[in-house]
């Protein structure tokens, strides 16, 4: 817009000096008026967006971030407990790599895709937690701390999924809601395993989950920074 104004001024200058002068004054006045109007609109839009983002970051996103930190911390704790419960081979079994588990990384380019990816991963981890819990039920005492923590992390995972869904609805209210999928998504549960395999499987699931939560925390922290107070100017840049 500003660029087109300058071109107009150049054309008038080439055409007639007197007239050019008159047209120049006329265009200058009009351009200033339009510029003021646009600046006011841009400023108002920025304020509205910032207010909207501040409101959003103060509710579901912050709560999701807090919950993700809690779940991540608990995932660290449960790995420690898991290793302690598995005996001498604990370090060895946790270094094994398995396939078919949920991807700990967050996919997608847009926030909606990324949040949807988090939701999907959480959905995918749910059957694996159930499998590990069942396997460890045979290996641990009924009142063992590991079983308690496995139960806890499974419940927390569901709550985190609820909270991620909430964030998604807050940030993208016009998008279709995230669909719950209890089937495990793209991943599949492993076939029957022996005890060693069960131990390896459980540890890998928990390590993968911990890695996933670490990524979720990073992402949510970034998203919070983008949405909340200190990064409002960065958000505003996208509108200029």
């Amino acid at each position, binding site marked *: 817009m500003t660029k087109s104004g300058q071109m107009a001024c150049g054309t008038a200058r080439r055409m007639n000096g007197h007239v050019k002068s008159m047209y120049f004054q006329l265009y200058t006045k009009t351009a200033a008026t339009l510029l003021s109007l646009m600046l006011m609109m841009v400023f108002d839009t920025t304020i509205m967006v910032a207010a909207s983002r501040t409101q959003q970051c103060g509710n579901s996103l912050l*709560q999701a971030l807090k919950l993700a930190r809690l779940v991540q911390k*608990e995932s660290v704790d449960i790995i420690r407990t898991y290793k302690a419960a598995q005996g001498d081979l604990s370090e060895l079994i946790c270094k094994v790599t398995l396939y078919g588990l949920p991807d700990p990384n967050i996919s997608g380019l847009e926030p909606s895709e990324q949040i949807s990816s988090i939701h999907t991963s959480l959905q995918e981890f749910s059957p694996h937690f159930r499998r590990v819990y069942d396997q460890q039920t045979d290996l641990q005492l009924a009142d063992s701390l590991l079983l308690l923590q496995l139960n806890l992390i499974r419940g927390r995972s569901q709550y985190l999924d609820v909270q991620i869904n909430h964030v998604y609805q807050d940030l993208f209210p016009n998008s279709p809601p995230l669909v719950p999928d209890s089937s495990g998504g793209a991943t599949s549960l492993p076939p029957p395993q022996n005890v060693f395999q069960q131990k390896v499987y459980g540890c890998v699931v928990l390590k993968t989950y911990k890695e996933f939560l670490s990524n979720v925390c990073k992402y949510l922290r970034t998203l919070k920074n983008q949405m909340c107070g200190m990064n409002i100017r960065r958000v505003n840049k996208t509108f200029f």
Partner: protein
Amino acid sequence: MVESVPLLRAVLLLLAACVASAIASPGFVNYLVTAPQNPLLQIGTNFTATCFITNTSDVTVDDLRWKLLAQREIPPEQYTKINESALNVTIPITDKTPRWLFCSSQKPAHGRYNSGAYMSGIYLKKGYFPRKPENLSCRAVQDKMHISQFIHCKWEPKQPLPGDFSTMYTVNVNFVNSFKSFNKTTSESSADVDTEVFPNFIFLDVWVEAENELGKMESEHLLVESNSFIKTNPPSDVNIISEDSFPTSLLINWTRPIDETQLRLIYEIRFAPESSYNWSYVPRADTSIDIQSFRLQNLRPDTAYITQLRCKNDKDGYWSEWSNNSTKRTPSSKPSSKPDVWHITLSEFADGRQVQLLCKEPEFANGKIVAYQISVRDFKEKLPNQNIVWERIPNANSSSALITVLKQIHLNNSTPVIVKVTAVNLKGKSPVATIVIPGKENVVSPVQRLEVYPDAGKLLVEWTAPNNTAVSEYLVQWTSGDQVDWQREKKNVRKTFIRGNLERFVMYNVSVYPLYSGWIGNPVQVGAYLEQGAPLDGPTVKLKGKPGCTEAHLIWEEIPKDKQRGFILNYTIFYSVDTDGTKTEAITVPSDTFSYTLKSLVRNQRYDTWISVSNVMGSHRGVKHSFTTLKYAPGEIEGIVVGVSLCFLFFVVLTMLICVCKRDVIKDSFWPKIPNPGASTIGTWSPDHHIKAETSSENCLSGVSVLDVDVCDGKSFFEEDKACLPLKKDKYMSEEHSSGIGGSSCMSSPRQSVSDSDEGGDIADTTASTVQYSSVVASSGYKGQTPSLPAQQAVFSRSESTQPLLESEENPDMLSLEGSRQSRRFPPLSHCEENSDSPNQLEMEAKMLDFCPVGEDSEDGVSAEGQSHEWLTDAPISSYMPQLGGYRQQ
């Protein structure tokens, strides 16, 4: 709701019709059908029921009646006739409405036979619509290192509603913007909702539904973050660190009860000196962040502090309980304030006084005071500070609350002394405290007015400043017995509470000293009680000396100070007047009186006395003391004896004097001169003259008495009257045939009377003009009572003497009987003249009475009368006969 009522009613009617048709089947006959069946009714509303007549024409609507419990008939005003076969009734539903409503026929035939066919009933199930649950609150407590999965919610009402419906409550916990939810149903007013895992950081929607058969009510919704429900454990492992380099600070460390990833906490810290438990709170702004250590500052050195913490969620939530006490003492430092030096005067002498110097530890001792350093010198002695000689006095007191006696000094009246004291602890010396004790000649003006009174459980001291404006501070001192304490006040203070621990019912002498830059002014002192009570004891009263006849002097002593318990207003002396003590007199005397004299007492009376001591709160009576007043005052008996003796002596002397002076008169009275008949010149008319002479001589020896008879002497008159009254009667009866003054005895017959009305005047004339004398010839004994004996030969010799004629002359047979009795038995003649018709008659009667024989006197009247009667029969042969003849001859 209102629109659905007609529709519901129509449905019910239809159902009733169906039921009626079904009932009309063969085998079971019922001609009345009611609708609706089993209604659910809300108390406080109206209920309308319909009764249908089916399959019969015997009954009309007019025959139908509605009843409650088959007894209470509903008034027809509440009926509504729908048509010829349907009747409505409307009743209000209350909590007292019976549960059964009946419709029946009133026809008599229907009541006796087949009555069940003409009756139909409705069971009324009634109750209240559920109340809206209010005051919903939920709480989740910490369980080990996590929050419990159970959310405990409670609400009101707590009591179930009356009625037939039980209300069930359902607590719903929903995740906001999610389908995730939990709930719990209960009939109580609280429930624990199981959330499997506590939903940290998730917004929850919590509400309660109350539901019964009448409907459902929903409480307000709680839309909060789940962490707002959390109540954690208190902080643990509270550790307090004391650092020597910071004597006014303590560092607190603790462990948070739950991980910060679950909950962000804020804290509250409070601390108090161990001795007081007066809590100070750290401002919330300093602890409203998630911290795990805090430094308490501006504390007092060498003071033990108790510290407690609690925590809660940083936004909403419940405070945890306070943590356990954690105690730590701050490091000590050198005293930061002066010791409090004072003095008391122990004794005063002519040239000075003995003063004891006292000291309290500095307010900020900052450690244990191990010793004091003191310097005492004349005020006029100028010495630089470095040349002051300090005397070290170890501090023996283990507690800072006690007062240390520094030393005793002797002060001259003319020389003021200056006293300097410092307190020493392990870290150093305190600033120097200075007082100047003036001599008596250096008087400084005291405060102008001092009042001490209790206020709000303390003693309030109020004074007016002295005229001298150089006052630097005031010192308020209070003493009780040998206890002394004091406090200092700033110079602008005019009113203060005594800060010491004063006891109730104890009198304190409160003094206010103005201090002029350490120079002690004159005090003003008043007494005061923190609280007064009734005296605990009464004074013991006793007598001073012995009680008198009408007065007693009582003395008593002031009761001990510790038992007065208040300002004594007065003493009341009680003493009982009656012997049984029911009536007492009371005398009130001022409180400064310790003796009193009871006056106007009754002689020889026992008194109980006691004294009651009174103050504003009551009185107490002392021990009772008893005494008895004297019947006679000391010396009174002696006075009476002396007086009586003197009177008697005077009487005796007077009598003797009279006897001496009037001995002639007395002699004449008692021993009248009786002419010697022997010397009489009258001729001897008796034929036997020598006998007459012997008789005269013998008569003188036997004694001649003057007859002094007084008939008015009541005693003698009545005594004689008993014996002689018959005689009198007889005398009057025999007046017509007796005459003369002839002698007669008491036992003489009426004929022997000497009075005669016809001859009275002659006799009187004869008696008055001529005194007859007769000589009495004594016979040999008494013979008058033996009339049966031969008549004695009476010998009469008429004397010419002027001596009155003796009775014995007229009644010689009675002569020997009488003796000394004559003088007391006969009344004076003068009275006879007044009370008798004739003096001679009375005289004769007197003679008759007096000359009773001994035997008659000693016997009763009956025997005497008997004798007289006996004697009367023999009277004609008495020896008096010759006398009559003789007298007449005269």
